[in-house]
C-alpha cells in the first residue's frame, strides 16, 4: 500500500475511553508530495517517489535541483520511493499530489520503517540476549562471553551465522501491524500504538497495510 514519510517525535501515553493507559509513539507524518513516478517501461519497476520537508534551492545539489525544476516541484530534503505493489494505487495518484496525515484513519494498521538506534559494537549479551555466566562460583574472566561457538576436529571450522559480538543497531528495521490510535490532521500528527524504531527526529516511513 501507499505510505508517507514522517519524523518520529517521541513516545508518551494516553488514556483510552476505559481509562486504560495506552503507550503511543507520536509521528509527524508529512506533508509529502508525489514528485515522480517510476514506471515499468522506463525504469523497470513501479513506484511512487515522495518528497518530504521543503528546503531552499541553494541547499540542494545541482543535479537534484534540475530534476526538481523539470518536475516543477519544490525542493525537498528527503526523497523516498514507495512500491505499492498494486498498479491501481499508482494510477490513482498524480504527480504533484499532496499526501498528508489525514491519509490515515483511526484503527488503521500500519508498518513503520526506520533506522534503529545505533548501539555500536556490542557483545552477545546485549546483542543476542545471551545469559552470560555467573558472577561467582568459580567463573573467571568470562562473565559475558558467548561460551562455545563450535565443535572440535570435526568440522574444524565455525559454522556461518553463529551469533557473535558485532555491530548492533543502526540498521533498517520495520515494525508491522501497529494500530493508529489518533490522527490530528491540523497538526499533521499521528499517534501509533507501541514503539517505533529510531531515535527522536529520525526519518520514518509509514505504510498502510491492507
Amino acid at each position: 500500500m501507499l505510505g508517507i514519510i514522517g519524523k518520529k517525535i517521541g513516545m508518551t501515553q494516553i488514556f483510552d475511553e476505559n481509562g486504560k493507559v495506552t503507550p503511543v509513539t507520536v509521528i509527524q507524518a508529512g506533508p509529502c508530495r508525489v514528485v515522480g513516478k517510476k514506471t515499468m517501461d522506463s525504469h523497470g519497476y513501479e513506484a511512487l517517489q515522495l518528497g518530504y520537508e521543503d528546503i531552499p534551492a541553494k541547499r540542494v545539489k545541482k543535479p537534484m535541483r534540475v530534476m526538481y525544476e523539470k518536475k516543477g516541484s519544490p525542493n525537498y530534503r528527503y526523497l523516498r520511493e514507495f512500491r505499492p505493489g498494486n498498479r491501481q494505487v499508482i494510477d490513482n495518484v498524480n504527480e504533484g499530489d499532496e499526501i498528508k496525515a489525514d491519509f490515515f484513519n483511526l484503527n488503521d494498521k500500519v508498518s513503520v520503517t526506520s533506522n534503529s538506534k545505533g548501539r555500536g559494537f556490542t557483545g552477545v549479551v546485549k546483542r543476542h540476549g545471551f545469559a552470560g555466566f555467573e558472577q561467582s562460583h568459580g567463573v573467571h574472566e568470562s562473565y559475558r562471553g558467548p561460551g562455545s561457538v563450535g565443535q572440535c576436529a570435526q568440522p574444524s571450522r565455525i559454522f556461518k551465522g553463529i551469533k557473535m559480538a558485532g555491530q548492533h543497531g543502526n540498521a533498517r528495521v520495520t515494525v508491522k501491524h501497529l494500530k493508529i490510535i489518533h490522527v490530528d490532521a491540523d497538526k499533521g500528527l499521528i499517534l501509533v500504538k507501541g514503539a517505533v524504531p529510531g531515535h527522536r527526529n529520525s526519518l520514518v516511513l509509514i505504510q498502510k497495510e491492507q
Partner: protein
Amino acid sequence: MDILHQIGRDQIRTDFPDFRVGDTVKVHYKIKEGSKERIQVFQGIVIQKRGAGVSKSFTVRKVSNGIGVEKIFPHHSPNIDKLEIVRYGRVRRAKLFYLRSAKGKAGRIKERRRFSA
C-alpha cells in the same frame, strides 16, 4: 518535546488537592465490572510519587488485616473519581519504602503542621 507536552496537556488533571509523600489519602477509584460501574475507596499512605507529565503515578500503601497492600495509580487517570487527604504527614524522604519492613514505632509518621498563607 514540545509537541509531546501538548498532547499530554489535554489529559492532565488539576482537580486534586496537592498531596505529598507521607500523606494519608483516600482514593475513590472507578471500577468497571461488565457494564456496571462502582467506586472503590482505597485509603493509605502515599509512599512514592514518580514520573512527570501524563505518565506521573503514585503508590498508596495500607495494611489490611495484617497484610501490606500497595496500589499504584496513574496520577492523571480519568478513573480516579476523587482524592481526599485524610492526614498530612511529615517525612524526610521522597520514597517511603522503609515502611514495608518497619515495625511498631518505626512505622509511624508525624503529622505535618500546615500554616495558612
